[in-house]
């Protein structure tokens, strides 16, 4: 009892000292709480479906940010990893009867392998050339899908996949839980030593090389990590929709991911996640005006990018928080002095 009390007190101290000091952390904590508590408020299947699909696409958008946002390897064909994950999971589940718990990670492994295969030739390319080359890969894979209809189902895709769970609530917690865990892992990666090197490669690859770091290894690692997370998203999507079809490889899928990431703010991980959680439900919300759904979506995206070129979330964060000019620690915008070094904030 005493030990529990001590733990509670410590938890309260941590929350008060680490979370409540910054609005952005409060928002993230609320985001976790609302998502995890949502089924307690409503078990509406439509709402749950929208949140589950949003969670899957949030993983995909964050995985793009890990590769293109942090490492600067502009990938315009991210649907490749998503599609490989979806098709590999579907084939393993339907043809070899491997349950989702095995087929999704194995699908992700296939996407990692694809990341390696794509990454190696792409190492020689930069900027626009890299972007255009990556765009070609999902199209090539789609050609292969259509060329082998006996294995891939051709135009119809592979249908009849097993669900992760038949329970609405279990499904919800599995998908949302995986999203929260994977996005936290991606955010921790970008905050780690490896993440700093990714960042540095994007800013000045030559300087990183001059520091004795094998940038090739790190760029390949970024392709593989991004492929892994996108592959998981693809596998989850296939099992949720119960079909893996050519639409998972479409160019529009690749571009939608880029739109989400740019809208939320690249090189942040949480930006693309937030963007998906705003834009995907928004498209559902405007179903009452079906003729103008896409127009409304486009206007919202354009307005945000016009007035917030760094993306929505960094803009919001800059409005509610200030960075200390001396110790670089973030403070709530209403503070006059830094909460750590007491330097005067501008």
């Amino acid at each position, binding site marked *: 009892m005493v030990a529990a009390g001590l733990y509670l007190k410590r938890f309260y101290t941590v929350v008060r000292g680490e979370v409540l000091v910054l609005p952005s952390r409060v928002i993230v904590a609320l985001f976790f709480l609302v998502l995890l508590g949502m089924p307690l408020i409503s078990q*509406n*299947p*439509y709402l749950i*479906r*929208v949140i589950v*699909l949003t969670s899957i696409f949030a993983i995909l958008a964050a995985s793009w940010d890990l590769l293109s946002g942090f490492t600067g390897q502009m990938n315009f064909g991210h649907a490749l990893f998503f599609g490989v994950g979806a098709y590999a999971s579907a084939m393993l589940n339907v043809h070899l009867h491997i349950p989702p718990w095995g087929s999704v990670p194995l699908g992700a492994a296939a996407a990692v392998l694809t990341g390696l295969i794509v990454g190696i030739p792409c190492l020689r390319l930069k900027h626009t050339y890299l972007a255009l080359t990556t765009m070609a890969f999902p199209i090539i894979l789609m050609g292969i899908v*259509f060329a082998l209809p006996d294995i891939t189902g*051709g*135009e*119809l*895709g592979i*249908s*009849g996949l097993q669900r992760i769970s038949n329970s609405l609530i279990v499904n919800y917690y599995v998908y949302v839980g995986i999203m929260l865990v994977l996005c936290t892992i991606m955010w921790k990666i970008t905050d780690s030593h490896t993440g700093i090197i990714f960042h540095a490669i994007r800013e000045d690859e030559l300087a990183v090389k001059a520091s004795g770091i094998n940038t090739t290894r790190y760029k390949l690692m970024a392709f593989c990590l991004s492929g892994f997370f996108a592959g998981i998203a693809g596998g989850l999507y296939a099992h949720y*929709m*119960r*079909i893996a*079809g*050519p*639409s998972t490889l479409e160019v*529009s899928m690749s571009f939608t991911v880029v739109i989400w990431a740019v809208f939320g703010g690249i090189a942040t991980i949480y930006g693309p996640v937030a963007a998906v959680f705003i834009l995907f439900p928004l*498209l*559902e919300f405007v*179903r009452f005006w*079906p*003729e103008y*759904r896409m127009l409304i979506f486009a206007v919202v995206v354009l307005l945000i990018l016009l007035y917030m070129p760094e993306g929505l979330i960094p803009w919001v964060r800059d409005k509610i928080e200030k960075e200390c000019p001396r110790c670089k620690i973030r403070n709530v915008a209403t503070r006059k002095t830094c909460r750590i070094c007491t330097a005067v904030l501008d």
Partner: protein
Amino acid sequence: MKRVTFGWSFFVTLCLVIFMSVPVWGRTIKIGVIGPMNFVQGKGHWNGAIMAAEEINARGGVQVGKEKMNIELVKADSNEFLSMTDATNAMERLMTQDKVDFVVGGFRTEAVLPMQDIAMDYKKIFIGCGAATKSICDRVAENYSRYKYWFRGTPFNERYLVATSFAHLGLAGATIKKELNVPVKCAIVGEKATWVEGMIKAAEATIPKMGFELVGVWRPSAVATDVTAELSAIQKSGANLIFTIFSSSVGITFARQAGELKIPAAQVGINVEAQKDGFWEATKGMGNYVFTMNTYARGIEVNEMTKPFVETYIKRFGEVPTYTADTYSAISYGLVPSIEAVGSLDADKIVAHMENREYMVPSGKVKYQKDAQGRPTHDLTWGPGYLTSLGVQWQDGKLVAVWPNKWKASPTAPEVTYKGMVPLKLPPWMKK
């Protein structure tokens, strides 16, 4: 005075609210219409459903047991050409938010399969009006207890589409032999698209068996704006019959340039652009004598229901109905009579009734099939006496029907001719 004014205002408002709420008191049958509503296919779904609902409601609604119920349509944009997730979300919304009793529509197979799964989860009858893939109906036979709520409304499955095309080729080949007294040399021209692959394979295997010489296969882009190279090669090959497989804009380009160059060959097959009223204008009249498969045509009576349906549709929407407008038949002749017969909205009872019925629709007679093992597939029966579709040809600015005209599916089968048929015409420049 103020009090009196407020009191009266409150009373009037209350009366208005009660008056406006009256229709809500009566239970309605909610039918979800799902399709790509910003595209011609979805518009067809919606137009057909509107016509059905208006007709049924005008005659007092549907008799469900002792109660009369009106039909209420719920429009759902699946956006399935652009997004699969949009399609499934729209279906989930129909099931859980709009709480529809039945669903009609769907077009792209990749979207229809997951939409079918959602409807089956909720045990709601879903009548597909767009996807021709056979495997959607195979699911009914394989897992009847789960998929029995699915029925195909239109079109008949892909195998029968191919069979119909070959019947059209047979008619054109016979006409060439009879009128020109030359052997038939056939070229296959299919746009570069996946759905064409299977048809080309089937055509390559079947055309020689029909006694025609196969001179080659050409695959222009689906959006080609110039096909003169292909046309020159076809002319050089000596082809006098061209089996076309087009669903995109290349159908216009090919017909126009073939007309301009006066290629001495008859174009027969599928050309979706040629099914539209605007084809003549789009080809500047050069699409004369182009022959394509279609479901409806002006002035053709497959049965006594065809003419009233087509004419009312043209009057209401200004165009000949496309096959996705068969949501009209699915509601008016499929669902409603079965609901009235069982006197309930219970899906299981309606399924049991519907799958054993044979009923007339404006495009023919519907009978749901069973597979070789006798399991219900809820797929449509094709052939004489059932659904056949039409073969239509542009003749001097008019889209007229030329098939089935004394058509026999087999030597022993009955002859089929619909009212309003005219003979197939070969381009006059073939006779020189």
